[in-house]
Structures are given as structure tokens and as C-alpha cells.
């Protein structure tokens, strides 16, 4: 009787244990209105596929995400999987916060990534992948067709036809004379002292042959304040002083709301607002070619990373391969308006597939994207650059002086950190 009782107890415990010991993995994700429906779908789809096999996923949207991640790094308690913003990846690797993904994701997925997305997630010193993003972002010129037609402007359709600097200047001049156009161009200075000032303005200097730092010597002096950078930003400052660019105080809605701006240089995240505001008048125009290097666009965004403390690698691998499957990558694009990060997913996306409204974004992402520096000192680089751009667009400061100051601040930080070894060795 006693043996039967023990056997029965064991049976109950063992039966329960298959559930009790089912692997549950947790992923922290950014909490945004446009991303939320995708993450809800991801959790449901993953659990439907693997729940019965013993692996379940809990997706936790976190408001104030960067602060929460920094806090969790310090106090302990990072989950199995996190999302990291591309430019912050190198710093997280350097600080030992995250682990390589090479053994956690199928190589065919990595090989299929858009080049700039792969570059964004790869850490230079060891060449390993630490972040993999389901999407890419890009920027182009959005136009108000009606106002452009009134100005008698030819609208380019492909990157090959992109306006060069002289043509762009001429377009703005013509638009400035159209009735109802208060500002020909909105460069989204209303975003304020935001990452946008690096993300959105670096392409102008890169197109002109410059960059925000020398990516081989990791030195700012001579590159951040190079003649190419000074030239490009001086041109933009001149436009600003002519009243062609919406000032920061102008607010966010001059293009899609008031329609007093005819063009806006901004990213794919504004799809919904622009479509809602302009309807059939909305036209997508390729990024301008601002100099000898041709059209350049920014890229990057949030992607999956695995904390160094995560041990449950088998289930994490299951998750990463699922989240980066062609269907999930396409779903991310169609839900959020971002560009699919995998070539195989592009045709599956309604927005970015052949004939889709966002085809031009994919073309740009493939041909012209320049990754922001994958370097541990990036937070300081971007802060110094943003400050310079912000000051330049008050219209009163000397461009060279601002870029000199930025270069000094960046080099000082690199020196303070002994060149961020193993970089610089």
C-alpha cells in the first residue's frame, strides 16, 4: 500500500513536472504603439508553435526602455533576450553585457540580411554578430505633389535620378516662391537634441565625402571637422538662414498637417502620419546626392541581443530563429512600417514588395545605407555631433568652430578611455 502511495505521488509529481519545468523564456521589448501589435502576435505565434513542445515565450514591453535596461544591468535581473538599439550595441559588447549570437542563429539567416543590417550588428574587433534586427530604417524626401507641380519641379523616381546639390537648391528656390509654401523643406529640427541630428544629418556629409569619425584610425580630428563636412553643413546653414528650412520652433506638423512645408527629410516611421495627412498628394523622392559620393542614407534600429548572463541558449536559439523567420520579418515590416531586414522577406511584405509603396526605401537600404559607427565610444560621438548640428542650426554660429569643438570632445573621450581597447591596437 505504502509503495503504491509513493508510486502514485511520484506519478503526480512527474506529470506535473513536465509543465512545471517547461522552459519559459522572457524577452524585453520596446513599448511603442506601432510595435505593440507585432509583439503580441509574435508571442502568440511562438507559443502556438512551441508551447506544446515545452518552450513558452513571455514578451514584456518596457516603457522608458534604455533606462530600464541600464538599471537591470546594474541591479541584475536581465531577461533571456533583450532588444538593443543598433548604435548602442558596440558599447554593450565592450562593457561585457551581451554575448555573441553566431551560435544562436542559423547562418543562412545571417547571410540573407541586408548588408547594412549585418554590419550594424557586427562588432569589429572579433567580427562576431551581437545584435540582429528584424528591420531596417531609412530616410528619404517626402513631397507634396501638388506643391511640387505648382513649382514646376521634375520629381525623380529612382536613386539614379536623385537630385544633386545644385538641383536640390534650385527646387527649394522654386518652392520658396509658391503661394502657401512657408518653408520649402522640413529637416525635422523639431525633434530637438535627439539622435535624429546624427542619424538624419550624417548622410549629407557622407554624400559629400565626409563622415562623423575616421572609422579606421578612430580619430575625429581631420574627419569630424573635415572640409567636406564643413562644406555640406555650411550649405544647409545657408538654406536655413534663407528661411528655406522649418526651424525647431516650427513644430512637427508643417508638412503633413499645415502643409506649409513642401518637402520633408524624415524616415519611414512617418508613413502613417504622412498618408493620413496628404493622401494621394504624397510622393516619395530618393535621397539627394549632396556630393561626389552619391546619395547616402542612414540605417539601423532596434534588434535582438542576448545578455551575457543568459544560459538557456537552446530555447533562445529557437526564439531567435523564429523571430527572424521570413514570415516574422515581413510581419514586423507590415505592422510597423519599417523595412524588412532580410532579402527573402521583402517580396512577402505588402508595403515593400514588388510594386509596394515602399519599394524606394528598399532600394535605398540596399544601395546607399551607411551604418553609424559601430564603436564603444559612439554615445560620446553622437552627443558631440548632435550639439554641433544643433548649434549650427541656430544659424548664427561658425560651422568650422562647432565641428572643431565636436572633434576635440570626441578625441578627448577616446583618449580618456585609452582608445577603447581592443580598438586602436
Amino acid at each position, binding site marked *: 500500500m505504502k509503495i503504491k502511495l509513493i508510486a502514485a505521488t511520484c506519478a503526480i509529481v512527474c506529470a506535473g513536472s513536465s509543465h512545471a519545468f517547461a522552459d519559459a523564456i522572457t524577452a524585453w521589448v520596446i513599448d511603442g*504603439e506601432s510595435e505593440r501589435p507585432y509583439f503580441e502576435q509574435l508571442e502568440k505565434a511562438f507559443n502556438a508553435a512551441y508551447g506544446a513542445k515545452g518552450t513558452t515565450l513571455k514578451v514584456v514591453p518596457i516603457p522608458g526602455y534604455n533606462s530600464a535596461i541600464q538599471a537591470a544591468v*546594474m*541591479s541584475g535581473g536581465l531577461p533571456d533576450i533583450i532588444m538593443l538599439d543598433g548604435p548602442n550595441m558596440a558599447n554593450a559588447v565592450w562593457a561585457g553585457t551581451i554575448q555573441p549570437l553566431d551560435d544562436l542563429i542559423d547562418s543562412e539567416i545571417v547571410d540573407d540580411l541586408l548588408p547594412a543590417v549585418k554590419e550594424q550588428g557586427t562588432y569589429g574587433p572579433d567580427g562576431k554578430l551581437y545584435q540582429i534586427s528584424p528591420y531596417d530604417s531609412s530616410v528619404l524626401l517626402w513631397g507634396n505633389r501638388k506643391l511640387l507641380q505648382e513649382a514646376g519641379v521634375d520629381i525623380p523616381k529612382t536613386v539614379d535620378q536623385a537630385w544633386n546639390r545644385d538641383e536640390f537648391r534650385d527646387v527649394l528656390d522654386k518652392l520658396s516662391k509658391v503661394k502657401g509654401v512657408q518653408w520649402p523643406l522640413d529637416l525635422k529640427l523639431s525633434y530637438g537634441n535627439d539622435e535624429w541630428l546624427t542619424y538624419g544629418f550624417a548622410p549629407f556629409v557622407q554624400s559629400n565625402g565626409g563622415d562623423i569619425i575616421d572609422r579606421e584610425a578612430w580619430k575625429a580630428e581631420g574627419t569630424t571637422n573635415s572640409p567636406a563636412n564643413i562644406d555640406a553643413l555650411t550649405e544647409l546653414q545657408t538654406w536655413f538662414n534663407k528661411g528655406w528650412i522649418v526651424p525647431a520652433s516650427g513644430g512637427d506638423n508643417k508638412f503633413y498637417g499645415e502643409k506649409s512645408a513642401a518637402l520633408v527629410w524624415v524616415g519611414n516611421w512617418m508613413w502613417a502620419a504622412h498618408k493620413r495627412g496628404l493622401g494621394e498628394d504624397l510622393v516619395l523622392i530618393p535621397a539627394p546626392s549632396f556630393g561626389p559620393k552619391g546619395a547616402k542614407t542612414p540605417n539601423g534600429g532596434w534588434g535582438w541581443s542576448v545578455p551575457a548572463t543568459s544560459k538557456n541558449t537552446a530555447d533562445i536559439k529557437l526564439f531567435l530563429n523564429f523571430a527572424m523567420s521570413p514570415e516574422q520579418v515581413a510581419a514586423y515590416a507590415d505592422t510597423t512600417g519599417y523595412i524588412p531586414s532580410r532579402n527573402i522577406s521583402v517580396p512577402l511584405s505588402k508595403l515593400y514588395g514588388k510594386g509596394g509603396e515602399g519599394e524606394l526605401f528598399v532600394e535605398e537600404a540596399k544601395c546607399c545605407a551607411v551604418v553609424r559607427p559601430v564603436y564603444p565610444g559612439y554615445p560620446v560621438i553622437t552627443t558631440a555631433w548632435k550639439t554641433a548640428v544643433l548649434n549650427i542650426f541656430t544659424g548664427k554660429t561658425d560651422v568650422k568652430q562647432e565641428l572643431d569643438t565636436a572633434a576635440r570632445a570626441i578625441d578627448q573621450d577616446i583618449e580618456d578611455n585609452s582608445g577603447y581597447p581592443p580598438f586602436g591596437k
Partner: protein
Amino acid sequence: MAKISQRTGRGGGSLALACAGVMTLGVLLPLLMMVTISLNPDEQDIMVSIGALRSFIPEVVSLQNYFEVWADPAHPFLRYLGNTLLITGLTLLFSILFNSMAAFVLAQGTLRIRGPLMILILASLAIPAESLVLPQLIMAGWAGIIDTYQVQILPGVANAMSIFLFYQFFTRLPKELIEAARIDGFSFFQIFRYIALPLSKPVVSAIAILQFLEIWNAYLWPVMVTRGPEHRPLSVAMSAYFSSNLQSWGNIMAFAVSMAIPAILFFLVVQKQFIASVTSTGVKG
């Protein structure tokens, strides 16, 4: 107003009134815009009008944004409201209780180191609260209380400003009153419990209002120590609306108004005592 005119002459009175009017408008206009946008269900219309004069004048009155915010399954507003009320209420309760006790000991006790202790407490007012966040965070991690109510309540309990305000009040209590209580056989704690604390109602109200707003609107600490929605307060939940490039201003403003209403109600309830406290401080101080 009549008194101002008598003191400053008619011209001065008009100027003071104009200044007061401008300042009042400066405070009220943003609030008016917040309410106006929250009542407009048409997001496109909001985007067109935002910043223009008509974004301050309600043309449409609809509670649609409010219903969307209150019924959003991804962000359970009522849960967040309950969390915030609980955290604020308990922090205030413990803060008033312990800080008043500490102040009474410092003001009326016999400890020899009362003076140096009070100086230390006052000196701590000069330390920015943000600089304590990191050590507090690490300590919370050691204590294993991350993502709990405790971690959001405990750091707010000891408050140097509260101790100082209570201390000021308790040092001014008439000595005869304390002596009489002692002669009647009251213990030190009984004097505090039955005489000092009931007399300090205006101070309690002032501290309650000042600390209520501080805790109700706290963001940095809660965002660092909360994870899931279980213990998340309203201030952190609201930031989710700004994490995306797709912003729904109608919902954001409806959330902001809904978050402000309890604070306004609380102020209305305790304002009489608060004003009495401020007035008495002004007269005697």
C-alpha cells in the same frame, strides 16, 4: 484687490492685475490645450491644429480618447492607477509618521547630538536625489525587491524636508503645554501622539501636498525599478506613448488629464489646511 489698490495706487493695482493675469494665462493655457486635445477624437485634425490658436479652444467634445485609454488592454489604466494610489498613499503615511516622530525627538527630546543630527539632515537637502539613484538601485538589487511595491515606497519614506518642517513646528510648541502634559503623567510618546501630532495638522497638509506631487509624478526611480505592468505606476505607463514614432496625441492628452485629476482632487481636499499652514508660516516666520 482693493487692498493692492490702496497700497500701490490705481495704476500700480492695474499693473499688478495685468501681471497676475499674464501669469495665470501662462499656467492655464497649456492645461487648456491639454484638455482641448484630449476631447478631440480626430487625430488628423489634432495634427493639423496643434500649436495653432484653435488647439486651445474645444470645438469638439468627445470622450472617445478617454474610453480608449481607460479600456486599453495593453496598458491597464485602472491597474496603474491603483498601483500609483497605493504607492503614493503608503509612502505618504509612513513618511508623515516616521518623519514627524524623528522631528519631535530632535525638537523636544533630550539627545545630546540633536544639533549635529539636525545639521546632517539639513545638509542632506543639498544632495541631488538623482545622485543617490545608483547606490539605491544596487542596494535594491541586493535586497531582491526590484519590481515590487516596497522598492517604490521605501526610498520616499525618509524625507529631510519633512523632518525640517515638522522640526520647525515642534520647536515652537509652548513649553508650558509640554510641561503640563508631563505633570499629567504623559509619556514622551503620548505627548507626541496626543498633543504634538494633532496640533501639527497644517504641517501635515503642507507635507502631504508637496510629497504627494513628488511621488505621484516620480519617473526616474520607478522606470528603473519596475519591469512588468504588475507594479508599474501611471508616470512610467505614460512614457510608453512616447516610445514610438507613431504618437496619438488625443490619447496622450487623455491619459495626462486622467492622471492629473486625482492630484487636483487631493489638492482640493487638503488645500484649506495647506493655505493655513503657508499663512501661519508667513505671519510667524
